[in-house]
Each structure stands twice: as C-alpha cells, then as structure tokens.
C-alpha cells in the first residue's frame, strides 16, 4: 500500500540559508508520527516545507501525488491541514467564524455543518464561546480552536506544530487525549512536532529526531521511549 506521505531528500531554504539537509521519511494512513528535536533543529521548517510555505528541493508525495512545487492553498485542498506554531487563529473573528473558515473549501455544506457539531462535541468549551471573539479565548481554548479549525477541513493528514507550547500540563493532557480520539475515530494521520518529548512519545507510533536539519534517529516511538541512552542524550530526560 502506498504511503500516505513520503518525503525524499527534502531540502529547505530561508532565502539563501539552507535549513533542511535532505530529509527522508514517510507516514502510513492513520498513523501518528512525531518530529522531535531542539529549538532551531528544523522541525517547524519541515512542516512548512510540506505545506509549500518555504523554498524547497527534493520530493514530497501525498497520496501518490507530487506536491513539492504546489502552493499552500492547493496542498491544503488535497487534504493536509496545518496548525502552525502560534496557532494562526483569526483573532478578530468569532470562534464560530474561525470554524466556518476551516470548512471553507468543503463542497458538501451539510457534511461541513455536521462536522462543526462534532467539533463542538470534542471541544465543549468552544461551543460555550462560539460567538466570542477568538482573540479573547485563553491559550488552551485557542489551541483547541486551531485544531478544530484544521479538522473542519476533513483532512487525511494533520500537521501540528508544538500544540503544548505555553499551555498548562492539564490542558496539554486534555488536548493530547482528544488527538488520540480524533486519530482513532476519524482515521486522521497526525504529524506532530513537539518539544515535550515525553508526551509526544506516549501518543505517537513512530518518531524522528531532527538535529540541525538532518534526521539522526528514527524508529518506533515505544522503542525510543524505552531506550535510556537515547532519551538521556537527545531528549534530556
């Protein structure tokens, strides 16, 4: 079976500076993969490269189609949803408007409306605040909103950039639980960039460790979790 996502010799540049030096990895449908690494290693850049937001060389294939030269809007319409770092919420619009925008490209209006209901079930706090201006939501609520908005796309692959950033552990736990549920019920594959390696390795099936733009370790999440040497030297715990 063809992989959902397959990346081959991916290089990425900010202007003249090369940030990714030939990444190779792939993801199966419905799997959860996590990208770990220190600040500046290139994790966020990888997600951006997948979405066509930075200059790239190399091959990216999604559901068998090559997407590396396409624009962000087109890649999104193929079924990749990206929750960027900083969340990218439309802070001046209401919660509900943010969700509606998530479903903007859906052809089936009724299915999109049904999905919005489902989002409110996953995230009841959002239902309470549906008319509220998104910028006034708490950090955790904004993260939930960002994820919900991404899910409104009906994606096959969800890219998550540091969802735990700046949030209290309790909230982070809730969010990770919801992601597990979403992965199991909606069969959405998740590519998770995280600094909180412990929680990420709990959730994920596979893990890649990136250091200065190169993958240095790859393997099953469980194996890495149980490997004391790796944990101590690379993940700091």
């Amino acid at each position, binding site marked *: 079976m063809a992989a959902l996502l397959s990346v081959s010799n991916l290089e990425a540049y900010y202007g003249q500076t090369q940030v990714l030096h030939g990444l190779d990895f792939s993801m199966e449908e419905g799997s959860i993969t996590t990208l770990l690494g220190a600040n500046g290693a290139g994790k966020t850049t990888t997600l951006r490269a997948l979405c066509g937001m930075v200059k790239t060389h190399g091959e990216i294939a999604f559901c068998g189609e090559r997407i590396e030269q396409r624009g962000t809007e087109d890649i999104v319409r193929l079924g990749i949803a990206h929750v960027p770092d900083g969340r990218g919420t439309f802070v001046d619009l209401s919660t509900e408007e943010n969700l*509606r*925008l998530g479903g903007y490209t859906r052809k089936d209006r009724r299915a999109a409306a049904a999905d919005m209901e489902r989002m409110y079930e996953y995230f009841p706090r959002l239902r309470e605040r549906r008319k509220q201006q998104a910028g006034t939501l708490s950090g955790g609520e904004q993260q939930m909103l960002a994820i919900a908005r991404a899910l409104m796309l009906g994606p096959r692959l969800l890219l998550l950039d540091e969802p735990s950033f700046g949030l209290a552990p309790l909230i982070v736990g809730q969010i990770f639980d919801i992601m597990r549920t979403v992965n199991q019920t909606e069969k959405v594959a998740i590519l998770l960039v995280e600094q909180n390696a412990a929680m990420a390795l709990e959730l994920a099936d596979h893990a890649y460790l990136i250091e200065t733009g190169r993958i240095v370790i790859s393997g099953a999440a469980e194996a890495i979790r149980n490997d004391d040497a790796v944990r101590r030297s690379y993940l700091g715990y």
Partner: protein
Amino acid sequence: MSTFWAQVFSGLVTGGIYASLALALVMIYQATHHVNFAQGEMAMFSTYLAWSLIHAGMPYWFAFVLTVLISFVGGVVIERVIIRPVENAPVLSVVVVFIGLLVIFNSLAGWIYTYSIKSFPSPFPSQPISGFEYISPHGMGAIGVTLVVLVLLYAFFRFTPLGLAMRAAALNPASARLVGIRVGWMLALGWGLAAAIGAVAGMMVAPIVYLDPNMMSGVLLYAFAAALFGGIDSPGGAVLGGFIVGVLENLVGAFVIGNDLKLSLALVLIVGVLVVRPAGLFGRVLVNRV
C-alpha cells in the same frame, strides 16, 4: 436657519458619496495596506462609460448596472495584471504605480471624451417633493442608493462564506492560505468591489458636479480625509467619517471660510488627524516600540 439645514442635508448627500469612496479605500487598505490613489479616477472613468452607454440609447438603470459590472471586472483585472507584480515591492514603488494608474485613467478620459464639461442624467425626478425643500429628489435618491450599497456590502461580508473568506484573507493571509483560501483572488475581488463602489459613487455625484475628467479629484481628497478620520482600517469608521466630512465641508464652507477654500478643509483634516490621532476615530492604534 434654513440655510443651515439646507447645508446639512446637501452635506449628507455628498457625505454619502464620500462615505462610499472612503469605504472602497478602506477595503483595499485592509487587504493590502496600500491606499489606492487612483480610486477617484477609476470612478470617473466608470462614470464616463455610463455616459457613453446612456448616450448610445441605453435606459439609465440598464447602463447603471452594466457599468457597475464592467467596473467590477475592470477592478479585478487591474489587480491581477498591474498591481500583482508589485505586491511585495517597497511602498514608494506601489505609490508610483497607483499614480501611474491615476494619470492613465485621467488622460484616457480626456482623450476619448475631451475636457469639455458634460451633464450626467439623474434617474430621480427633478421636481422637488413638497415638504422636503432642503434636499433635492436626486439628493434623496443618492443617499438612498448609498445606503443600499452599504447595507448590501455589510450583508455580503457578514453573512456570506465568500465575504468571510475575504475578511479572513485581509486579516491574516497566511492563515487564510492554510484553510485553502486563494488569497490572491480575494485581493482581486476586493479591487473589483472597490471599483464597483467607485462607479456608483461617480454616477451619483456626476449630476451634481457635472462630468469632466477632473471631477473626482476633490471627492477623492474628501474621501481620504473621511477614511483617515474614521480610521483607515475601519469600514464603519470610514462610512461615518464620510457623512461627517460632507456635512462639515458644507457648514464650514457656508459659514466660515467661503466656498472657494472648502477643499483646504480636507487638507487640514488630513494633516490634523495624522498629527493628533493617526488611527482615526475607530481605527486600531499601533504602538511602535523603539
């Protein structure tokens, strides 16, 4: 006292036109952070188009609608073809391109239609309606048309998916792309709408000030003043600003400085707002921390 009310009402009429044009300016500013210096000349050119259609025998409202549609398409085309290549260029370059557009439209109009003043018909009856001496039927009609346009626009942006998408593209283009919105085309649509609004404004003001290639330069200046006064990134502020500027212009012109110097009020307002409160009444105040 009757002069006072007459001035106020005619100020509301021209104010509605300033409000429309100011709204067009704010729409483009919100999406691009550029001020379309050519907005007035585009509106003037649209009005000349309408004049041609009417003189070719087309009934007024047919010509009106057709002109609005053509202006819409024209706005979209101009954005895609002329503005897009300099989208990310420095401010000076973009201003120069706008001035280039201004000059092209102005001279094209002068070339095709000559500089002689033409009269432009009003679709509203010319006999004053009894009981309403302060405001002509055209004036009332113009205010009515302005209000209809404003309400339609509000409804479009507030209640339709496309309107929501356009707002999103203006507020946060990066996130808009991430939900699949084609931000470039949203910009083009915005230009189209702005051009259409301008056409309506032009057709409403032409019966009052008569049609000639330089008809809109004063109107544009007042619209700038209105947009700045209300807040360059606030559509509601622009509309309110337009009506206020219109009334103020008439009152100041009639009672303070005389009609010849009215236009300098716009200059004073612009500089005044920029000095005292650049964000205008309702705009967002940006703090520049050094």
